[in-house]
């Protein structure tokens, strides 16, 4: 069942001099001259304050909009790949939205089941066995038959994660996974993303390449292996946490809560 090209040797994501537009307004530029390489097995944290365009960078990386300029290769193929014939390539990349972006007319179970049901033409009964382990791993059992509007934000995000993982992607982009969560859920996300990065049983133990965005890089200190910062329309690749700390006191300051900055 593994995709034939699962063991990619080249970079997963490579960008050269890419200009990122805003999803809201394609003529507005949020980041310029992005040079970025994500290798298989990487765990990237893209830090940036709200409004710096982290989500836009992620949406562009996810193929939802083309780069406004420059070149972007996903698994060695130049994006955007909107053609139907290259769907398999696009599905090697999974995307988890900030608010979950669930389908409001479907229950949590149906949301999670939809991608496999659609792509493999499964009936509800056929999909049930595949959905069950994901429901259990995300502790979503009690919410399975609720529609998104009846589920709290903490749990909606988990449904979004389960839905993206159903297609067993090789690289997962997660938009602000910790934003607005209870501390208990923050710990859950950190541990699950850590496991996914090392190889989670849900994905057959295969290590997942991860890119997460955040406004506060500190929770990721011991977990992520690569750090980048979006600031003033520039994407600065800083390498490890140690390099991030060393690179700029000022950059780090901006990752700190508001009261520290005000002082």
């Amino acid at each position: 069942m593994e995709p034939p090209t699962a063991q990619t040797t080249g970079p997963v994501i490579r960008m050269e001099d890419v200009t990122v537009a805003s999803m809201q307004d394609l003529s507005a530029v949020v980041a310029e001259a992005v040079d970025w390489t994500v290798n298989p097995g990487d765990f990237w944290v893209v830090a940036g304050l709200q409004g710096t365009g982290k989500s836009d960078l992620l949406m562009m990386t996810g193929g939802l909009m083309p780069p406004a300029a420059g070149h972007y290769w996903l698994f060695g193929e130049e994006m955007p790949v909107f053609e139907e014939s290259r769907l398999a390539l696009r599905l090697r990349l999974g995307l988890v939205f900030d608010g979950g972006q669930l389908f409001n007319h479907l229950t949590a179970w149906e949301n999670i089941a939809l991608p496999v049901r659609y792509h493999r033409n499964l009936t509800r009964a056929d999909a049930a066995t595949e959905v069950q382990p994901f429901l259990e791993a995300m502790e979503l059992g009690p919410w399975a038959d609720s529609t998104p509007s009846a589920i709290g934000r903490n749990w909606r995000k988990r449904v979004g994660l389960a839905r993206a993982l159903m297609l067993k992607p090789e690289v997962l982009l997660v938009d602000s996974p910790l934003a607005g969560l209870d501390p208990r859920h923050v710990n859950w996300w950190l541990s699950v993303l850590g496991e996914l990065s090392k190889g989670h049983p849900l994905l057959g133990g295969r290590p997942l390449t991860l890119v997460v965005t955040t406004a506060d890089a500190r929770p990721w200190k011991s977990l992520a292996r690569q750090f980048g910062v979006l600031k003033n329309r520039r994407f600065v690749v800083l390498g490890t946490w140690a390099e991030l700390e060393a690179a700029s006191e000022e950059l780090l300051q901006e990752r700190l809560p508001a009261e520290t900055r005000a002082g």
Partner: protein
Amino acid sequence: MQTGKASAFNTPRARFALRIPLPPSVTHYFGRKLFLFLLTIQGLGAFGLITLGVILTKFRVARHVVWPMVFQETARAGLRLLPMFLFMAAALGLLVIGQSVSWLTRVGAIQYLGTIMVIVVVRELGPLLAALLVLARIGTANVVELGTARATGEVEALEALGIDPIHYLVVPRVIGLALGVFSLTVYLIIGAVLSGYLWAFLQDVPLRPGDYFRQLTGALSGTDFALLALKTLAFGFIIALVSCYHGLAQPLRLEEVSSATVRAVAQSIIACVLLDALFIIIYLSA
């Protein structure tokens, strides 16, 4: 003919009227409206062709997911509206028969009752009324649902999962609405014809059911059935297309959903009436 038409504008008064310069604000207004109208036509045309293409090329793709949705939409735009349509059918029968009976008996032309039913209800009022009712109940709901889905990022989520939004969101609605308008029109016509007789009977019109039925069949032709099917399917298709286009095709913010709904309703009505005019021309020339 040409010279006749030209001479209508050739009177001194008409020549004077044509020379009056319109203020730029007026010409700009109409120019802008015309330009927007053409842009909408272009967008709707492209959207319609894409939808048709998706229906044909993805007919068997994900049928365990999409076909149940087609049934669901057909039930929503058809079966569930049936009670309201039966009420409308009773009212329509009364409307047409109640008005025409008193007049026809006065001129002694009661044998045309069936013909009037066919001309008014089968050819014109039935399909158009069905289309407008379905537009009011389902077309508006479509714009709101799809507009909200668009505004809250559900469409991006579908794309991220490799699911074609046209295939998943538009195709079931288009097929469901087309079938819904078609079948509801049939029920509306049957109901109106039956209730028409009932109202005539209550007004003591000396007309036996057999005669009424013969009048109806005499006035109907094979073309009526073919054109009725074609027309109602086209109405449903157009209403679904316009409502989905306004909900889905352009980026929307939540606060724009209501204005998109208003636009979709207005354009659907215009499109249906224009289509109806086209069918009248076909009737008259056939």
